[in-house]
C-alpha cells in the first residue's frame, strides 16, 4: 500500500472511543474526497440531518501524495461532512486546507480521521504517532485559534526553540523531532456555533467553507493536534525525484529567463496570491512540499500565511480610508484567522451591510439596529468590533453569525435583495466568488449542481489573459483564441477534441458542449484535485508558454507523480473515471438530503439583472473565448444575464449526459451499476429516491 499508512483514525466523541478503519477497504477511491464520501456514506445511516446533529460524520482525509515530494500536492487535507452554511438545505459539503497538517498526519501513521458523536464537554485530540488521547479542553475553550495552538505546542513539546531537537512521549514510543505538532483549531466563532466558523491551522490556513468550525463547536471539539516521525512508503522514489525534476525543467519558472515562464500556472514567476499591497519586507511561504509559495511571512509578523480572498477582506476599505495600504488590512485578516471566521462571508457581508447602512435601513436607530460606526470603516477599531460581533454573536452579530443570507431573511430583506443583487449570493445561500455565473458559466453551473462555490480556478485564465491585455491596449491578446481553445480541448480527456466546450458566447452556454465541459470539470476535480489533492493554485495546467509546444503539464503530470508514489499504473482517464464515480456518490448523498432538480436554481438576480448592472453602468470589461459567425475571438460577456428557461433546458441536457434522471436529477440504477455503486442504488431505492432510467 505505497503512499498510504494503512489505517484511518475513528473517533467517537460521545463514548470517547478510539478505533481504527483499515484504509485498504477504501483505497480504490484514491484518497481525500473519494474516501471521505465513501466513509460518510457507510457510517451515517440517516443523511437528512442537520450539520449540528451529533450524528453528523466529519472526515479529514489525506491523499497518497500527502507528505511526499509531489509538487503542489503534499500539503492538502480534505474535510467533509454535513455543513451548516448553505441554504435551504445544509448540504453534505467539503472544504480543503493547506499547511502541514495532512503531511504530519501521515507522518504519525494515519491516512485520515473520522469524527462522530458529540463530547459532553469541550475536548481536544492529542495524536502522537499511534498514541491518541482525548483530552479536556476546558483551558482552551474561549481562546482564539492562535493561542490555542501555542498552548498545545507547549503542552506537547514543552518550551524550547522551534529548531531544537526534542523528544516527545518519553522513553516509550518516543518521537524525536525538530517539529512542533500540526494543530487544527476552532476559534470563538466556531465555539458559538457560527455558520461562518472556520477551522484554522498555523497562522493562516483555513478550512473556510461549509461552517465546519461551527460543526466542531457543536461537537465540543476544540482542536486536533498531531505529531509523528514515521516515513511514508513510496513505490519508486527515484521515479518521484525524476518526475519532479522533469516538471521543474519543463514547466516551472525559468530562473535564468523568467520572461519565458509568463504563462506558467504550474510554477509562475510570482506565485504569491495576495490582494494587499506588497509594501512590507516579506518572503514567500509554502505548504509542505510545495514548489511555489503562494503566501508570505512578513517582517512585521502581520498577515502571515494568509492568501487569496482573506487578504481582500479589508484591504479596499483600508485603502479607501487611508489613501494607501496601512496595517489595518493585515490586522483585520489576522482577526478573522484568530476568531476563525469565513473570509468570504465576512467580506461579502460587510459590503452588504454597508449598502444597507447607506440605504438608511441599518444603523443606530434604524429598522435593523446596528451599532457599528460606518464612519470608521477602514480603521482597525471597526474591524475589531465587526469581527468580535460575529465571533461572540454580540448584538446584531447574532444575525451575522448565521451567515448573511440567513441574516437577510431574519431582517425580511432576502427576496428584495436577491432580486436586485444587492445581496450577491448566487447559489445555495452562499457568497458569490467573483467569477459571475452570468459570465463564467462553468463556475456557476458547477456550483449550483453541487453543494458550494466550487472555488476551482481551472479555466479562469481564459478570462484573465484577454481581459488584462485588452485593458493594457493589446489589440490581439495572446494566446490566439482559436489556438487556445483547441489546445485546451486536446487536454480534456476523455472528451478531447471539442473546442466548443470552451465557447462562452451566449447561445452556446446552454449547449451540450457546455454540459460536457461541466461534467469533465466535476469529474476531474473530484479525483485529481480533491482526492489526490493536487492544489487548486497549481493544477491543472493546460497551457504553458515555457513548454516547447505551449501545452501545460496536465494529462501527463497528474498520473506521473501518483504512480511513482503508489506503484499503480493509472492513466489520466482512469482518474477521471473515479472522479465520475465520486461525483455520482455525492449526488446520491444530496438526493437523500432532499435534492431535486426543481430546487437547483440560482438566485433571482442571475436571471434578471445583467452582469455589471443596468443602464450606463455596464460593468467590467470581462472577456472569454467565443465563436461568433464562424470565427473565434475573445468576446465581452458582461451585460448579460442567464435565461431561466434556457438554463432549465440545459439542466436536462446535463442530467442526460451524466446518465441521471432528467425529471428529478437523481442518479439512476443503470448508471450507478455501471460504475460499481449498486449498493448506492439500493439505498436510494429504499428511500424512494432512485431516478427513473
Amino acid at each position, binding site marked *: 500500500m505505497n503512499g498510504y499508512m494503512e489505517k484511518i483514525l475513528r473517533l467517537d466523541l460521545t463514548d470517547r472511543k478510539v478505533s481504527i478503519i483499515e484504509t485498504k477497504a477504501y483505497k480504490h477511491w484514491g484518497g481525500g474526497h473519494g474516501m471521505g464520501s465513501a466513509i460518510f456514506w457507510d457510517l451515517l445511516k440517516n443523511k437528512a440531518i442537520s450539520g449540528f446533529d451529533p450524528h453528523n460524520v466529519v472526515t479529514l482525509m489525506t491523499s497518497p501524495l500527502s507528505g511526499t515530494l509531489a509538487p503542489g500536492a503534499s500539503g492538502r487535507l480534505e474535510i467533509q461532512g454535513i455543513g451548516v452554511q448553505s441554504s435551504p438545505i445544509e448540504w453534505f459539503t467539503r472544504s480543503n486546507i493547506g499547511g502541514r497538517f495532512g503531511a504530519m498526519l501521515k507522518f504519525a501513521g494515519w491516512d485520515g480521521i473520522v469524527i462522530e458523536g458529540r463530547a459532553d464537554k469541550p475536548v481536544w485530540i492529542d495524536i502522537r504517532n499511534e498514541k491518541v488521547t482525548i483530552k479536556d479542553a476546558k483551558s482552551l475553550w474561549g481562546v482564539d485559534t492562535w493561542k490555542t495552538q501555542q498552548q498545545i505546542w507547549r503542552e506537547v513539546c514543552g518550551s524550547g526553540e522551534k529548531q531544537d531537537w526534542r523528544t516527545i512521549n518519553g522513553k516509550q514510543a518516543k518521537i524525536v523531532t525538530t517539529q512542533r505538532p500540526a494543530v487544527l483549531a476552532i476559534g470563538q466563532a466556531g465555539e458559538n456555533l457560527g455558520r461562518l466558523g472556520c477551522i484554522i491551522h498555523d497562522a493562516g490556513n483555513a478550512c473556510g467553507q461549509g461552517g465546519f468550525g461551527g460543526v466542531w463547536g457543536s461537537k465540543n471539539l476544540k482542536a486536533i493536534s498531531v505529531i509523528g516521525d514515521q516515513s511514508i512508503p513510496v513505490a519508486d522514489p527515484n521515479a518521484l525525484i525524476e518526475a519532479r525534476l522533469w516538471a521543474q525543467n519543463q514547466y516551472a519558472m525559468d530562473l535564468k529567463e523568467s520572461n519565458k515562464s509568463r504563462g506558467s500556472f504550474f510554477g509562475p514567476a510570482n506565485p504569491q496570491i495576495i490582494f494587499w499591497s506588497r509594501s512590507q519586507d516579506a518572503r514567500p511561504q509554502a505548504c509542505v512540499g510545495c514548489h511555489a509559495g503562494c503566501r508570505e511571512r512578513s517582517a512585521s509578523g502581520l498577515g502571515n500565511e494568509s492568501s487569496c480572498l482573506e487578504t481582500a477582506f479589508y484591504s479596499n476599505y483600508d485603502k479607501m480610508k487611508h489613501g494607501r495600504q496601512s496595517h489595518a488590512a493585515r490586522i483585520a485578516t489576522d482577526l478573522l484567522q484568530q476568531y476563525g471566521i469565513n473570509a468570504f462571508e465576512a467580506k461579502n457581508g460587510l459590503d452588504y451591510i454597508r449598502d444597507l447602512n447607506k440605504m438608511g435601513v441599518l444603523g443606530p436607530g434604524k429598522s435593523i439596529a446596528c451599532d457599528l460606526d460606518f464612519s470608521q470603516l477602514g480603521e482597525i477599531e471597526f474591524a475589531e468590533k465587526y469581527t468580535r460581533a460575529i465571533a461572540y454573536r454580540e448584538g446584531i452579530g447574532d444575525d451575522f453569525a448565521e451567515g448573511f443570507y440567513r441574516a437577510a431573511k431574519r431582517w425580511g430583506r432576502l427576496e428584495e435583495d436577491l432580486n436586485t443583487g444587492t445581496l450577491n449570493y448566487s447559489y445555495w445561500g452562499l457568497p458569490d466568488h467573483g467569477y459571475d455565473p452570468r459570465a463564467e458559466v462553468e463556475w456557476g453551473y458547477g456550483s449550483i449542481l453541487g453543494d458550494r462555490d466550487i472555488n476551482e480556478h481551472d479555466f479562469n485564465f481564459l478570462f484573465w489573459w484577454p481581459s*488584462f491585455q485588452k485593458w493594457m491596449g493589446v489589440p490581439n491578446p495572446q494566446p490566439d483564441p482559436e489556438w487556445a481553445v483547441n489546445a485546451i480541448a486536446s487536454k480534456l480527456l476523455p472528451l478531447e477534441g471539442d473546442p466548443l466546450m470552451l465557447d462562452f458566447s451566449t447561445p452556446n452556454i446552454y449547449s451540450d458542449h457546455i454540459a460536457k465541459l461541466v461534467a469533465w470539470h466535476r469529474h476531474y476535480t473530484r479525483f485529481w484535485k480533491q482526492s489526490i489533492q493536487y492544489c487548486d493554485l497549481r493544477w491543472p495546467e493546460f497551457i504553458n508558454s515555457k513548454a516547447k509546444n505551449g501545452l501545460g503539464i496536465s494529462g501527463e503530470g497528474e498520473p506521473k507523480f501518483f504512480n511513482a508514489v503508489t506503484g499503480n499504473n493509472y492513466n489520466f482517464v482512469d482518474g477521471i473515471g473515479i472522479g465520475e464515480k465520486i461525483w455520482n456518490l455525492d449526488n446520491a448523498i444530496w438526493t437523500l438530503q432532499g435534492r431535486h432538480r426543481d430546487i437547483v436554481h440560482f438566485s433571482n438576480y442571475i436571471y434578471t439583472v445583467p452582469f*455589471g448592472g443596468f443602464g450606463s453602468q455596464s460593468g467590467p470589461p470581462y472577456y472569454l473565448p467565443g465563436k461568433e459567425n464562424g470565427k473565434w475571438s475573445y468576446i465581452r460577456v458582461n451585460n448579460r444575464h442567464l435565461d431561466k428557461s434556457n438554463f432549465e433546458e440545459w439542466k436536462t441536457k446535463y442530467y442526460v449526459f451524466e446518465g441521471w434522471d432528467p425529471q428529478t436529477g437523481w442518479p439512476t440504477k443503470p448508471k450507478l451499476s455501471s460504475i460499481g455503486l449498486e449498493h448506492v442504488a439500493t439505498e436510494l431505492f429504499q428511500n424512494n429516491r432512485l431516478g427513473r432510467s
Partner: protein
Amino acid sequence: MTKLAKPNKTLASRILTEVDYRKHITGYQLSERGGARPVKLYSFEEVVNFLSAPHPRIDFEALLVWVQDVMSDLELTSKLKTTLHQDVSDYEKSLRCRELMEQRLAQSKAVG
C-alpha cells in the same frame, strides 16, 4: 498635466461629502484569482483611492455621468471627457482620470 481651476466652497464640499445609496458608483476589482469583485463607491475620494488599487475597472461613461450629475463638477467632466477621447489604452485612461480626480480632491481639501 492639465490644471483645474480652484473649486468654490460649494463644489469642494460636495467633493468631500459621501453620497447615499442611490448615488453610488460601482467599480470592479479584477484579478486572476478573484474574478471581478464589485466595489460600491460612495464618495469622490473613494473613487480616487479605488483607481489607485491594482486592476481597477470602472465604466468610463458611467464615471463621466457620475462626476457631472452627482458631483456637478462640469469642469472636471469636460477634462475627463477630453482624456477619455484620447487614443490610449483603458489602463492609461484610468491613470489619467485618477490624476485629474486626485488634483480635484487635493484642491477641495485645501478649500474645505
